[in-house]
């Protein structure tokens, strides 16, 4: 890895582990295995202990994010409005579980404790868009929009004549 990130912190000091993990995640979008190994050696901890910390906190990811990040709100209000069904529907549609990324790397599915938009519960957030009062029926249509966008990009790549 870029020593640039490591060099920001003094070596053999485990108290800098979390800032280091955050910086690496900022750089790569996730925590690659080889980087975790290097961090472990740098801070003087075992590889598995670093892995333990990385898996303990929700903020850290061990796999790269998909192009589109879907966040299903599982807060109280959304739960009352049946967000569990919404989540299951998306999981079925994409063939993955919450926390996973599709094989084509197009979607990553996550759950959120509360998105803060309870008035329009249940809420699903995809990238910058918010979909309020969403129903199970609408899900395939919404997802196909993102799939189509991707298809367009592949068929007509920008900048290529």
């Amino acid at each position, binding site marked *: 890895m870029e020593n640039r990130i490591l060099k920001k912190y003094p070596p053999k000091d485990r108290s800098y582990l979390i800032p280091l993990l955050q910086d690496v995640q900022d750089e790569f979008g996730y925590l690659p295995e080889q980087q975790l190994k290097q961090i472990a050696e740098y801070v003087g901890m075992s590889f*598995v202990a670093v892995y333990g910390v990385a898996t303990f906190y929700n903020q850290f990811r061990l796999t790269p994010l998909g192009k589109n990040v879907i966040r299903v709100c599982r807060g109280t209000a959304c739960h009352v409005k049946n967000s569990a069904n919404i989540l299951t529907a998306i999981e079925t549609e994409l063939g993955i579980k919450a926390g996973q990324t599709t094989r084509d790397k197009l979607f990553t599915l996550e759950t959120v404790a509360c998105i803060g938009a309870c008035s329009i519960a249940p809420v699903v957030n995809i990238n910058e868009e918010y979909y309020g009062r969403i129903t199970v029926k609408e899900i395939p249509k919404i997802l196909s929009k993102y799939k189509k966008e991707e298809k367009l990009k592949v068929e007509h790549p920008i900048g290529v004549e």
Partner: protein
Amino acid sequence: MVELTINNIKVKAEKGMTILDAAKSVGIHIPTLCHMKDMFPTGACRMCVVEVEGMRGLTPSCAYPVVEGMKVETNSQRVRTARKTIVELLIENHPQDCLICVRNKNCELQDLSERYNVREHRYVGEKKKHAIDISSASMERDPAKCILCGRCVRTCNEIQKVGAIDFTYRGFKSTVTTPFNKGLNVSDCILCGQCILVCPTAALREKSHSKEVINAIKDKSKFVIAQVAPAVRASIGEEYNLPLGTNATGQLVTGLKRLGFKKVFDTNFAADLTIIEEATELISRVKNNSDLPMFTSCCPGWVKYIEQNRPHLLNHVSTCKSPHEMEGAVLKTYYAKKMGIDPKDIFVVSIMPCTVKKYESDRPELSENHLQDVDAVLTTRELVRMFKMFGIDFNDLPEDNFDNPLGESTGAAAIFGTSGGVMEAALRTAYEKLSNKELDNLDFQQVRGLQGIKSASIPINGIEINIAVVNGIGNVSPILDEIEKGESKYHFIEVMACPGGCINGGGQPIHQKPEKVKKRVQALYEIDSKMKNRKSHENESVKKLYKEFLGEPNGHIAHEILHTHYINRKNILNNN
């Protein structure tokens, strides 16, 4: 001193003592799961909770120090209910396959379930699901059986300082596992098996070779030979309720013969052979002042450790194979020829106190003409299970002697099983070889005992030979750092990966009796002191082996058969 009352009994305890220890001193049992003697308490499992007057909640007795005038109830209804609930919750997230479990009848969870009279399933919920990790050659990891007490994690990280496993994820998903949940075979694990010894359930266990051994025994075309490590004879009695430190060599030999082994040899023979080779190697290194200090290579856990962590220091490790591999090599060459047996038909089974030996026996470089030196390794525990299966009542067995010629051994070989033993044996031989004088006092007290690092300076023939004994792989780092910096003053260093040496190996009987290591060590020193020959170079069969077959120590044939080479495994691990 502090005075307190526990269950209405007046107890005097030392200041700083925990309630748990104070209760123990007057014969009051408090159950524990995560507690480890002499280690900082974590208070994680809550099994040891007690009621302390004036305190609101229940108090973990393993982590709470005694206070003057304290009133403690260790067995009130409230305490019992709390403990029972913990056990019930643990059981409900456990596979409950006790009938076919390798730890059946030697399981702490099972004991607690019995102790708290758990008779029904009160909680039914989701169970964790995990695949069994069978990737390593020595051990199996079954996280579904893990109750997350953390004893293996602390042993691996704080005692052994290997750091192969740790807690990962959290809440319901908490698992003790390797990085990225990959197999133990590609982790930092050295397979020492110390985690198995502390595991309360069967979440960690050895990989069994019993099937291979049983199949070989029933195969009429095979000449199946057993060899027994020094440490097994001093511990196997514990499985049969014999007092700690009972030397059960005689019964062990009879038992093995009754299992159907054609010959039962003693790994101690090869231990003597190892000493001849290793002492010769040391003398030549000291004379040439090359690759010093020299490390012993008897412990495959230590060898795996240095291959994985400091491969640039591998030139310091003696090239001698470990004793049971030497025994296997001699069996498949010298002995096969002498007896007119095709080496392909010889099946060598090592009875070992060790889990790493299983991995070691698979190493491709430890072979003669593409035949592995050793074909299977049984731990002490597996052997006991086989005795049971074959209807052999150990306690009633008459005594028998090892077969010859690979059964003769000296006192020097017997102490191989304890930390400092290899060093002491090597010193006895090196001293006499270097000085051509007889050694007056054979007992090198400086290298005995259970300290982490023992060092001494022994004057031999005008040269001060500086030696060190590393007891437990967790203590080896500073010694290696010194060598890296070029500051090491030592000539010869013994390293044993398990604390106490092989006597406390990962394949030994599982129980938490505090005196076990000390007593087993005593048994070995006693065997040594009672021997007529106590120096490896006095072993007549070994002398004969050199005369008839090997030629000179460290000579050409010896090098072919008794020596090996090592591999840089750091890169192998890093590329995974």
